[in-house]
Every structure is written in C-alpha cells, then in structure tokens.
C-alpha cells in the first residue's frame, strides 16, 4: 500500500486517537502513517457492537416479559457469559443459570446478590430490575456514543 492510499475514514471509533499503518513512500521505502480508520474495518467493528446491543436488548425484553431474571440482562450488558461470571463470583455455572430464572432470583439472599452487583459494579437496587428503555452498551458502560451505528 502506498502512503497516500492509507485510508482515513474517520468515524471517531478510536475516540480521537489514530492508529499506525505501514505503507511505502514515493521512494518505495516503508514508513509509518497515522490513520483515522478504514471503512470495512469500521463496519466490522460496528457490526460487532450492534450484535452485542441486539443481544442485550433481547435480554432486556425477556426480563420484562418475565422469562428471565435481571441477572441475565446485566451479565450480557457487562460482556460476560456464564463462564466469566463464574470466575468473577465463584458461583458455579449451574447455579448462575438457575439464578437467571425470575422465580429463583427473587428468593436470592442479599449476600449472593451483592456478589453479582459488585462484579457488575452496580448497586443492589440496579441489579433487581432492568432499564425501562432500550440502552446502548457503549453509552451505558463507558459513556461513549457512536457517531453512526448504521453500516452504510
């Protein structure tokens, strides 16, 4: 790739920083070029973020219709699965899966709930419900808004 061909498709996915690309200059010599991003790569990243958000929204709706407990929603929002959550809390996977059932979640003791809340870095109160509206994980977790979520 030539230096002048290094793409500069800035969608602010890097939050202001630029990444290093290697390309050849007019004398054929390799040099570092800073890049704001490349469209196919930006799209692939946005796709990954969107899929996470879809799964989280799905979970939120399942909690609202009573088929899952809020624990399931928070686990996905914090980019975890049963295995990772097990490692952080020390609670075994089988139990975590049971705790994702609303009827069982309701009966959980405070010290179990606290383990989860601490892992997710949220309050006990937060853990007991889900947000009323659709949320976007980057915004919720890191206070970061994608300029354009759509792949265009």
């Amino acid at each position, binding site marked *: 790739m030539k230096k002048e061909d290094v793409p500069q498709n800035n969608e602010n996915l890097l939050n202001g*920083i630029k990444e290093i690309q290697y390309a050849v200059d007019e004398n054929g010599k390799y040099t570092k070029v800073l890049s704001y991003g490349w*469209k196919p790569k930006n*799209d*692939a990243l946005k796709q990954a973020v969107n899929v996470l958000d879809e799964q989280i929204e799905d979970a939120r709706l399942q909690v609202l219709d009573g088929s899952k407990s809020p624990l399931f929603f928070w686990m996905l929002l914090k980019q975890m699965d049963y295995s990772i959550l097990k490692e952080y809390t020390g609670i075994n996977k089988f139990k975590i899966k049971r705790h994702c059932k609303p009827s069982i979640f309701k009966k959980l003791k405070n010290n179990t709930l606290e383990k989860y809340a601490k892992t997710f870095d949220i309050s006990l109160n937060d853990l007991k419900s889900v947000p009323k509206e659709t949320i976007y994980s980057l915004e919720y977790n890191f206070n970061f808004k994608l300029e354009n979520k759509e792949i265009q």
Partner: protein
Amino acid sequence: MSAHCENGVISNLLKFHNITLSEPMIFGIGSGLFFTYMPFIKMTGIPVTSFRPVPGLIFKRVTKRLGINIKVQKFKNKSTAMNELDTLIEKGIPTGMVVGVYDLTYFPPAYRFRFNAHNIIATGKTNNLYHISDPIMEKIETIKYEDLLKTRFAKGTYKPNGKMYYIKEVPTDININPAIIKGIKHTCKDMLTIPINYFGVKGISILANHIEKWPKKLGERKAKLYLGQVVRMQEEIGTGGAGFRFLYAAFLQESSNVLNIPALNEMSEQMTIIGDRWRDFGILSGRIFKQREKSKSAYNEAANILRDIRTSEESFFKELRKTV
C-alpha cells in the same frame, strides 16, 4: 480478538535500555507473522481466526534470539502482584504487563471488549495513579490502582494472572543479524510446514472453503458476523494493516539493508502485493456487510481472493526460505 501490542512494548522496553530496534524488526525477529483459522475454537460464538502467534510468544523469541535476560512473573495474590510492580517502579525499571482491555479506563471505548492479551508498560507512579505507556495510545496515559489491578486480573480467555515482565540485563553488544535469519526461518516453517491443516498457508484455504459455505450453512446474518470477525482480526490496531503483512514487508526491507541481501528487498515488494490482496479481501467483505440482498456469489469471490493469497503466500515463503 486481538489488539496487538507485543512489538510496541518490546520496542519501548528496549528503548529504556538504549537499544533502538524498530517495531518491524522486533516483529520479524520474533516471527510474529502467522495465520490460523480454527473453526473448532470459538470466542463469543465466532470461530477464531488469527494473524499472529499466541500472546507472549513474540516476546519470548525476541529476547531469546537477542540474548536479552528477562524476568517474567505471574501471581496468585493480587496485592503481591501490585506490590512487586511498585517495587520495580521505585527502582526505575519500566515493567511490561499483560492486561484485559475491558477495564482499561483510558482505552477507546469501542475497543473495550473482554480481550485479555493486551500489553502495556508501567513507567511511573504518582500517588494512586500509574503512568502507562500503551503502544496504541499516542501519549502517556494514567490509570488508577484499583483499575489496573482489575485489568491485570481480568477473567475469561487468556487470563493474564497479573503477568508482568521486565528486562534484567542486556548484552553489551547485540548482533541482530543471526537473530533476523532465525526469525525469518521460523516464520517460513510456521507458514509452510506445521502438520496441522489449520495453521499456516493451509489454514487460509480452509477458511476460503468455509466462507463459501457460511451463507447457506449459517444464514446471511451469522455469515456476515463471521466474516466481520475475520476482517476485524486482519485489521486490528497494531497489525499495521493487512494482518501484519505490511509490517512484515517493512521488516524484510529493513533486513535487506542490515544483512546486505538485495533479494530481501524484492521479497518485501512481493509481500506488499500480498498485503494489498488482503486489503482487497477486506474491501469485498465490507461490501458484503452492507448488502441487504442475498450475495452468495460475493462470498465465492471473497473465497477466491483467499485462495489466490494462499497460492501467493505459499510460493512466497518457499522462496524466502531459500533467500536466507
């Protein structure tokens, strides 16, 4: 997933010891170029494609090949891990660490996935704040004690377990020439002769065959997601573009001068062309992400680019093996 950073960290650690080696040089000596597609291993439900060896390997190879004495430590106890780090910082020893990026507070938010093989250097500490040299950031960043602790003990795939490393001793004069040759030979071996089909150039063909089947087997939505993952790995920050192929071309060019082997410069040019083909694959994949209608022929076309790349890389590494 991978934000690659080992080269940058090694390069920076050596700089503190007054050894200037470029990032491409480190990458080449450490045999950082690789390819593997492992459909049987999935991360977040998507098969693993990687353009680099497992984390830590480049570091191990570079230091060994240059005769640099290093110390690597892992910890069970969190406060011990932090205390040991503090002791080194107090002595003025820059210390590399493997961390998870999800809790890396200064990191670009869109890149904060649960990926645990990022490398950073602690260079100092003021009160509760660590000064961090991170190869993907443009300036020195800071992170709080409790956040650094979290990233060093992140859970999930490739748990860092507080892993940290530093240079104990560097030889007075380093001869990089034999290290370069070793690095090149090893890469040729990795790409051509590992007797497992998922590794090296053979893996590229398997990926091509699978890509063709994805839309029918997985449905359009999942097929796109799988393809997106390949592009993400190929273009991850720190690859320098095209799955490290441009970085490797830069290494061959530099080596051509160091070793005074003009043929290596020609090999560098060939590698640039291969890198451009990987970018073509990325562009076509990008078009597939956007297409709302069925685009099976586009998948075939993408697979054919990969087959083309496999052929080129195979003859490239065979020739490179003969050159050194």
